[in-house]
């Protein structure tokens, strides 16, 4: 399962990326506009979508919205270097990670591999392990999570980050650890990725009995899942 869907309007660039990825052992399909890309992504035949959010108009962002409306497949965004607005909007809409364009194909491949590795990873804790913290219950093997018996609809990155926090429940986890264990890469400077994902997780997890969020920000240390 290493079929990559490339969605970008720059035909030549996509062609070269496809050539590179194929040499690296992936199978690649290219789409050159947001609509076709979203439709292809929703067929479910791809392990990951690489999506250029800078496509003209609202093409890229709109495609991401459509993909997230119907699928939790990993999505890697291509964004402009230095353009925070698109990046944060994309992460909030549920993209798993981003690569700033221009990027080398090697960088792109590494990022694709990291996302695929952690989404397809076989949990080292063995089968049948259940993580349970308060009202939260996680089944890493099935990649399922529930809150107070209710099924949680998490993207793969959100699931990974929550899993890291759940394994360390009651202890603060630094952003760098979260990035390395959850995203499979070290934290970059000015990286808002973790914050955006955690903010999204906070919305999805319900509040504690006393109304607080169960995800606490520990100033200068990172995040902590409160253990009850």
């Amino acid at each position, binding site marked *: 399962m290493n079929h990559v869907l490339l969605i970008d*309007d*720059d*035909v*030549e*660039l996509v062609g*070269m*990326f496809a*050539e*590179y990825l194929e*040499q*690296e052992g992936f199978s690649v399909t290219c789409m*050159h*506009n947001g609509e076709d890309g979203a439709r292809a992504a929703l067929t479910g035949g791809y392990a990951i979508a690489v999506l250029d959010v*800078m496509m*003209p*108009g609202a093409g890229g962002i709109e495609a991401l919205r459509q993909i997230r409306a119907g699928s939790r497949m990993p999505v890697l965004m291509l964004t*402009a*270097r230095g353009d925070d607005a698109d990046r944060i909007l994309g992460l909030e809409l549920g993209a798993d990670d981003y690569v700033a*364009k*221009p*990027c*080398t*194909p*090697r960088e792109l491949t590494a990022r694709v591999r990291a996302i695929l590795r952690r989404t397809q990873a076989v949990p080292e804790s063995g089968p049948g392990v259940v993580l349970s913290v308060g009202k939260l219950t996680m089944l890493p093997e099935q990649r399922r999570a529930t809150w107070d018996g209710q099924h949680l609809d998490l993207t793969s990155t959100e699931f990974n980050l929550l899993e890291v926090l759940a394994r360390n429940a009651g202890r603060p986890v630094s952003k760098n650890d979260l990035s390395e264990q959850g995203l499979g890469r070290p934290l970059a400077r000015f990286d808002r990725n973790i914050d955006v994902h955690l903010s999204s997780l906070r919305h999805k997890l319900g509040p504690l009995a006393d109304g607080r969020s169960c995800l606490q920000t520990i100033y200068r240390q990172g995040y902590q899942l409160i253990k009850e």
Partner: protein
Amino acid sequence: MGRLFWKFFLCILLAQVAATIGVGGVFWLRDQARQRATPVLDSGPPAAIALDAAAATLRHGGLPALRSLLPDMRRPQLFVLDASRHELLGRAVPAELMHAVERELRDGAQGGDSAVWRGARRLVGPGGEHYIAFVSRDFGRQIGRVGREAGLQDGLRDGAGPDTLTPGLGPGPGPRRRIGQSVVIGATVLASLLFAALLAWYFSRPIRALRSAFEAAAAGDLAPRFGPGAKGGDELVDLGRDFDRMSARLRALMDGQRRLLHDVSHELRSPLARMQAALGLAHQQPDKIGITLERIERESNRMDKLIGELLTLSRLEASPDVLRREPVDLVELVDGLVADARFEAGQVRAADGHGTALRVDFDADDSVNVSGDPDLLWSALENVVRNAARHGAPGGVVTVSVRAADGVARVEVCDRGPGIAPEDLPAIFQPFFRSGASRTGVDGHGLGLAIAQRVVQAHDGEIVVANRDGGGLQVTITLPADGR
């Protein structure tokens, strides 16, 4: 309150004080003059009647009757002096009045006609004693009027007639009068201070508002501050409106520059991204280095072209008037462009192997001369013709015509391509604008028409883009033709 306020304030105050002193001085002088030459002796008909009555009383009733008449004569007031110059009722007669009486009597003696309008008259009693009788206007009511007089002086500033000001004959201003005067002066000064402050505030307020607007603009805040309200208004309000207009224009220019910079960085990034991808491939597959190098060369050429176009554009925008002016034959120029376009179309056909060749029709007068910069005109027309050849390819035919009529050279370039969505037409000359259909797949940066427009405008010409009936786009360029 800034310095300007105090300057205004002092100036206005000074002007007011000067005016007050001037007007006050004039009235004071007039008052003085009037006091000196006061016609206190009444010589009107009522006075004559009173004197006749006094003479008759004296003749028939003697001194006692006259004495009893005097207190009853209040208006006009009658005075009678005996031979020793004592008033019969013992009333004091001011020296000025005495002088006036004597002068009057002397004049009367010289003129000889004592019967007509004289303020003073010699009377002869039954016993032969001599008396002098005269009538004084208002004398004796002075004391009672002092209080009102202050009020009258005040009223005078309101423009009341000078007749109401009756000269004072009393023994100098009394203490009440002095208090009244100082109250009036105090009130006047206070009012003048108030008005000066009001005026100064009125003038300095809009200037201070302008100043804060300038400071905000200097700090980068170009939001409108004075608003379109206050329709009428004076020059200062107009100035505020002008400032708003200026800052709006600046804001638009700055936004345009920012957008341009954003677009430029985006456009430079695309070829860079492709170059990086090509380099990555070269690393991965060293045996395909030839293809990779070709790609990199192509991308660097694109970047070079983009930067060249950007420089042309910025030069045109910086100084649209500084142009080389040479006679240029548009027919010759366009003919060369059409030949290029035909050649390229032939190459594309050879490369694709398709049968759908693009036909470029050229239709022109013998020669159409304009004066301008040949390089700029070349690039402007090249952009337009290339655009038509590129986007009009599906239509199969591009028509180019060059005509001169009525002192105007007209170049028309028509294609049968997809045309442009009507809502996009106004934006078509903006740098980096590309309409939806041409955004993908077609080489180009969206600078061509922007450059063409700047060039044509710099040559005092006009460029119009319109969709054709039956599909396609028509670009019409009009330039002032050379006179010869």
